[in-house]
């Protein structure tokens, strides 16, 4: 028998926080993926909500494109508030 499809598991640890990737499980369908995710990743009150997503549905950036993808942000420091010098006397800005 071949492996069941892989699902990525995301847990919301408490209300107000976003779901965060915690790992993966194999399961034949979404319902069992949820059950497996619950048993595998929330045995100690780690979460209040679970997402499972078929791993095959995730499109990831390629690390070999990292420079093209992310380096352009490095020379745009003017996007950060600390780039601008405001005199000490000026407040609430």
């Amino acid at each position, binding site marked *: 028998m071949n492996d069941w499809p*892989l699902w990525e598991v995301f847990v919301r640890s408490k209300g107000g926080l976003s779901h965060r990737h915690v790992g*993966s499980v*194999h399961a034949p*369908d979404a319902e*069992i993926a949820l059950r497996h995710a619950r048993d*595998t990743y929330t*045995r100690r009150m780690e979460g209040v909500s679970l997402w499972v997503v078929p791993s095959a549905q995730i499109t990831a950036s390629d*690390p070999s494109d990292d420079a093209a993808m992310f380096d352009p942000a490095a020379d745009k420091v003017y996007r950060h508030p600390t780039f601008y010098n405001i005199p000490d006397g000026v407040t609430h800005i």
Partner: protein
Amino acid sequence: MYTTELSKSNNVASTEDPGKLAAFEARVAADEFIEPKDWMPEAYRRTLTRQISQHAHSEIVGMLPEGNWIGRAPSLRRKAILLAKVQDEAGHGLYLYSAAETLGTSREAMIEALHSGKAKYSTIFNYPTLTWADIGAIGWLVDGAAIMNQVPLQRTSYGPYARAMVRVCKEESFHQRQGYEIMMVLSAGTAGQKRMAQDALNRWWWPSLMMFGPADADSPNTAQSMRWRIKRDTNDELRQKFVDITVPQADALGLTVPDAALTWNEAKDGYDYGDIDWEEFYAVVRGEGPVAKERLKARRDAWQDGAWVREAAAAYAQKHARKQEAA
């Protein structure tokens, strides 16, 4: 629980692109994490796959010596605790299999390697659990040794492995404490119970020391693995740390560590301990452990007995997929 790196040769192929290799080595040396889709040398991938899958197998096989005591736990409290611990070991195996799969080996292939006897797992699980005190000794010593090894692996260079280790370490501490508590109760009990605790310590002490793997002089791959941050401390360093921490814990129980050569060495600020029987260690690695065959048989039986559940789940999923297509 724990793995020992038991490979033989490990030559970094000279066919690797020298530029990529240098960049990789620099990243690892700077304590950066390597992620699944990043370039990595084949030898790194191979070594990690073997190490993580051995580790996963150890967690899975590690359920067996304890699982056979769930029905015989002396109280409902102990039974609930042991069930939770064994369930954790299953979870640890799953985290680790998932981490190993990100390196490109399928779950099926790893499980097949375990069941066929091709894959290694920690030698410790091929010793029998004869009495209830053994469950105490395993939690205290075996999980204690595992923690000693796993804590530094939270900073191992491969991201998915490091993240799995963070989860495992969080959960492992309860394992050790519940085991020590069993030993405390037995040591403070009747003369017979205390004898049982001492007997368990006597049988598990040396196999626990062996869990750290061969002496540094006989671990030719340690240097490479440490350079790649797959391993963060040598076998002997971790073993020494374990002895230094564990001996006072045995004293607190009023039990005696079964080593006549054990003495405090002021100069090195640690204990000197007796010689380890490496013949026994290598025999167990070769699969000659006292209950090696039973363990694998129990594992294969569990897999086969669960086949109908997997088949039913797959059939159910297929039926629903067809219904959805039709709708």
